[in-house]
């Protein structure tokens, strides 16, 4: 800073002080007068949060109770846009679909969430696996509830899939144009059962061990591919190279079988099932939405295709 001589700058200095004082005064004044006004404005704004920038950046339309916005509420939401905007007035009746497809899907989500949490506590290796379950039951906070929920939701999902299929059959919903979606459904049924089955072994207790032993023993008898199945021997099948060996990663249910079960259960099948579900829901929409409750058709109205 260059040296300043005498009091030459004194007046200026006083001027600066004055200016600062005046400025601060102004600032205080503005705080006094503007802030309450702004606060008032802010509070006014909170009364209608739908006008805030944050809100409008998330939701791409207004929330007025108009038919247009009701439709947009569904269509512009990635999760809800599986639904059409409007549906047949009777399609919401519980007695038609029993809600079973939806319940199945909801249970799948519950199973995914509880399953991921269980994975934090579980090692898919012999000795450790069983201890992990004990630990989960006795020491992990809410561990027992977590395990119970995962197990019972799995059982419920099996029941719900069956009931869903049963309802789809009874309402003839597999008929044209939904043949293909019924087939996707059959695959989903198979994968739901397999998901449940591969999970059965994971606690590595007597129940799971023997259930899986009984289950995979059947694979031994696969015609042509199992060592005890018809034609198995002729094709060179032994306990060490047949289809059961491939499933278990060994000739008995042991560490490899546990690991394979785990990977199928936690990664392989959930991915396949999720993909199939996406296709399933997509097709429900593309096939014209839910099949009914449709107007009844009379036998006399059937148009026989000309041959």
């Amino acid at each position, binding site marked *: 800073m260059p040296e300043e001589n005498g009091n030459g700058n004194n007046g200026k200095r006083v001027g600066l002080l004055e200016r600062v004082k005046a400025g601060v005064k102004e600032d205080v004044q503005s705080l006094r007068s503007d802030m309450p006004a702004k606060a008032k404005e802010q509070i006014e704004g909170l009364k209608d949060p739908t006008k805030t920038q944050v809100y409008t950046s998330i939701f791409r339309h207004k929330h007025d109770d108009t038919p247009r916005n009701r439709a947009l509420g569904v269509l512009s939401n990635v999760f809800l846009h599986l639904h059409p905007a409007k549906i047949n007035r009777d399609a919401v009746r519980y007695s038609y679909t029993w809600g079973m497809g939806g319940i199945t899907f909801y249970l799948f989500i519950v199973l995914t969430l509880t399953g991921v949490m269980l994975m934090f506590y579980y090692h898919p290796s012999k000795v450790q696996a069983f201890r992990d379950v004990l630990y989960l039951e006795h020491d992990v906070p809410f561990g027992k*509830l977590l395990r*119970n929920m995962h197990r019972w939701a799995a059982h419920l999902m099996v029941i719900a899939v069956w009931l869903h299929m049963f309802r789809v059959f009874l309402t003839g919903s597999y008929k044209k144009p939904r043949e293909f979606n019924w087939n996707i459904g059959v695959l989903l049924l198979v994968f739901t059962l397999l998901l449940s089955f591969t999970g059965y072994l994971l606690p590595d207790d007597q129940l799971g061990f023997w259930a899986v032993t009984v289950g995979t023993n*059947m694979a*031994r008898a696969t015609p042509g591919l199992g060592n005890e199945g018809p034609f198995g021997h002729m094709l060179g099948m032994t306990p060490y190279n047949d289809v059961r060996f491939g499933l278990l990663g060994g000739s008995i249910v042991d560490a490899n079988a546990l690991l394979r079960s785990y990977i199928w259960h936690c990664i392989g099948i959930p991915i396949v099932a999720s993909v199939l579900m996406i296709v399933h829901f997509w097709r429900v929409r593309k096939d014209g939405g839910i099949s009914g409750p449709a107007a*009844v058709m009379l036998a006399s109205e059937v148009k026989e295709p000309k041959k």
Partner: protein
Amino acid sequence: MDWRQLWEICSAPDNVPIVGLIPLLIFYIYLAWKQARANDELIGQLETNPAMAKTHHRKSWPFRPGWQKEIHVWPFLLRMEFLVAMIVTIILMVWSITLNAPLEEPANPNLTMNPAKAPWYFLGLQEMLVYFDPWIAGVVMPTLIIVGLMVIPYIDTNPLGSGYYTWKQRKFSIGTFLFGFIILWIAMIIIGTFIRGPGWQWFWPGQTWDHNRLIYEVNRDLPDLFGITSNLGKAIFGGIVVGGFYAVGGFIMHSLFRRYNPKDYKRMSLLQYSIMMFFVLSMVALPAKMLLRLAWHIKYVWITPWFNV
């Protein structure tokens, strides 16, 4: 009556879903039946009254002119979905708090569980092991079930009854499905769960499980009854019997189907017709074989060097 035994089976945590499944099924069958009856009544009315058929809205639920035919998903469907999700969550919570998932001793290959049961949803197949060799019960049957389900939309040519509950318009297909689902699948699971005890023997509900019970069953093979002893003879004989079952059964089915379902019969192609015949007869074959076993202690019908049926 051993109430304790009965209670132990019914309250075993992994059996509880089946105990729950039975009332659920009854409820939903009732719900479907109620709607089917209402629709069938309406169909009957409309068929006898063409004038009414022209103007009626064709549903058994009320509808007045002026009512909207379509409603918004938001909120009418979404609130239902939310409600159902809540109810399922509550049921699941209560169930999980009151009943613990089973955990037995650590897995031990040297200590066989008796009875060793598959998970309950596969018990129907395990029950079939009593009557069939594992390659049929464990491999062929599941395959046939899956394929059979998959072909349903392609062999059911009846255009009626799509999108509403009915019985009168689809007697054959609904009857067949009920037979497969309720009798061959659910009933077998119930037997496998509640009736089969140690050694996979039959114990009536409430009968004490006797781990030492032995049943001396002298099972015979069908060719033995006819005094056929040579291997070649047995193979040929069995082939004829099994083939004969499909041929004679097919003929009986044909004469019934042609009479009672003339329209479907006319519509179906040869391929559709033969596939339907094959699956329906294969379904009937299960109780047939069970009858042979239970009534005449017959183990195999068809014996060859490679496989037995």
